[in-house]
């Protein structure tokens, strides 16, 4: 990697980190899911129990939470630094992923900048959502897979990060198996018994070890391994029983519970307060529709390009995007907008590739126009995601159309 590119990556990290870190101690009380996630970290470490978080989700989240509480203390930094750091790292990993897919810096830069400034990714990076660090582990696994070039230790490292993703949330199971199959398919590895066993042992056993290992504190309650298998099976069945009426009616995400609408219509949920006649503070979870709406066309275009060029590498964002998205569409339980976060690196990579491809054919300068326009739009939304005290007028139409819970001070 050349020096210029290292500088780009450092700047990207600083941009992502700055946008996520700025005024992170506000609010200075536990907000939203933090009220469950923070005490659950300590409860799991000390007692092996999941309360007040859901018991169905894997517990690496609690171990990380406890670690950050020890590092930064039981204060807003301790609660939030984990997501800020992993959120910023995800932007760099998105750059690297898109770089490997496209082979060029332009698509990679666009993908990285879009994630760094995406209002949904930012707001989730400022609290304790597990999609941020789980997604970062997942991306790290994918990037290492892309770069392995036959190096065993990179496959093992990729498998380790995949295990961390799986130990955070179940979202990543389809793509874990997909990468395993791609490794077997590569150079027809499945035809050599030794190589096939190597891939199976590293890419299945290492993630499984990390996943099981994350339950170490749960075992402490007296459980044996057969009970663990039963527990995981029951967790899977329990997740299928979730229905919108099972959630707290005050939950801000409830108004949109279908994954089908994420990339085709505007979704704005969350909460906010109008202060005086013309100002307000808002923490909104929204899809940045002018950017997100390009996702599906970009996926189609990338799929066509990958097919024409017979390139699995180029089709990887499409495979990973739909590998995960199909899970959200297929499950019986409600899926809320925050679950879209792990899809964004693949969506933005596809958009980056599409923009680069199209502007390369029409007019290369258009690339900069698209980059600046998308960046400007995301930054315009930034105050709405981060509880900044803003004038309401420029956002009036967004707020009027939103499903956010808005109060008047």
């Amino acid at each position, binding site marked *: 990697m050349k020096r210029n590119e290292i500088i780009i990556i450092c700047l990207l990290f600083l941009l992502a980190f700055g946008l996520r870190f700025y005024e992170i101690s506000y609010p200075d009380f536990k907000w939203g899911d933090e009220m*469950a996630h923070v*005490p659950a970290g300590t*409860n799991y470490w000390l*007692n*092996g*129990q*999941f*309360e*007040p978080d859901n*018991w*169905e989700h894997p517990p690496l989240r609690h171990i990380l939470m406890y670690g950050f509480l020890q590092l930064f203390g039981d204060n807003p930094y301790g609660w939030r630094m984990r997501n800020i750091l992993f959120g910023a790292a995800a932007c760099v990993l998105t750059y690297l992923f898109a770089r490997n897919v496209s082979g060029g810096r332009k698509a990679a830069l666009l993908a990285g900048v879009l994630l760094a400034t995406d209002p949904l990714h930012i707001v989730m990076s400022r609290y304790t959502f597990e999609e941020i660090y789980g997604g970062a582990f997942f991306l790290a696994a994918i990037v290492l897979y892309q770069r392995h070039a*036959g*190096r*065993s*230790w990179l*496959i*093992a490292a990729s*498998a380790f990060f995949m295990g961390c993703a799986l130990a955070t949330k179940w979202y990543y199971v389809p793509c874990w198996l997909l990468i395993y199959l791609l490794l077997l398919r590569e*150079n027809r590895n499945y035809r050599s018994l*030794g*190589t096939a*066993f*190597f891939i199976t*042992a*590293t890419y299945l*056993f*290492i993630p*499984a*070890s990390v996943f*099981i*290992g994350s*339950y*170490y504190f*749960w*075992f*402490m*309650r*007296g*459980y*044996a*391994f057969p*009970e*663990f298998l*039963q*527990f995981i099976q*029951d*967790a899977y*069945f*329990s997740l299928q*029983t979730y229905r919108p009426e099972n959630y707290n009616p005050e939950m801000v995400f409830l108004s949109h519970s279908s994954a089908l609408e994420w990339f085709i219509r505007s979704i704005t949920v969350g909460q906010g307060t109008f202060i005086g006649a013309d100002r307000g503070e808002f923490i909104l979870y929204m899809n940045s529709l002018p950017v997100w709406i390009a996702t599906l066309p970009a996926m189609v275009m990338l799929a066509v390009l990958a097919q024409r060029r017979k390139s699995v590498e180029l089709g990887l964002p499409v495979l990973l995007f739909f590998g995960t998205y199909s899970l959200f569409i297929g499950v019986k339980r409600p899926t809320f907008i925050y679950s879209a976060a792990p899809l964004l690196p693949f969506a933005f990579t596809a958009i980056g590739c599409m923009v680069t491809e199209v502007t390369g054919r029409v007019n290369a300068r258009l690339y900069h126009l698209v980059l600046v326009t998308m960046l400007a739009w995301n930054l315009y939304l930034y105050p709405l995601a981060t509880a900044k005290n803003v004038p309401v007028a420029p956002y009036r139409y967004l707020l009027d159309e939103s499903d956010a819970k808005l109060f008047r001070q």
Partner: protein
Amino acid sequence: MYRHKTAWSLAATALLIAVIAVGNDHGTRHRRFSPGRETVTVDSPEKAYDVWRRKGVKGRTLVLFDRYPHMHGRFNYQGEPRLERSNLVEYSIFQNVIRKLYFIVPDENWKDFLQQPTTKVIKPIAGLERGVSLYDLNGLPMIGITPSSLPHLPEQVLVYINSDVFDAKQAQDLLTRKGISSDITVIYQGSRQ
């Protein structure tokens, strides 16, 4: 193409086996049993916890002959949870005395039990005519089951019988018939006494 693939394969396999073995051992080593067997009668439910605490039992299966236990969650208490008359089972879960619960429902009440709003069934248990998996907030496996469907349990269990709800003699006979042994059986003789 891959270097040292045999070594990596063996290392990954050994890692998985080690993690399973360590987890399993870590779990079973945290179970604490009471030497001998005893049956204790108490006049208030919270005294059952005192018996278990004195005997130092931990990580145990409880066979519960009682009404549906109070399960509100640790964080619905003001401060640290305290042992109260109504929260024996939940408090014992918080203290990791109980890791698994068999909640006995009389056969004649089974259909009503399944209709109760507090009964959140995850799935029926394969091979049992009247047995369902239920879970509380802590992820504690709770099995709702009738006396006729109660299987043989190979490990020694804790038994708690509320004699207002179940006849203690019949409950103990049931356990004997099923070959279930207990190191501590607590019989709560409440208002009837």
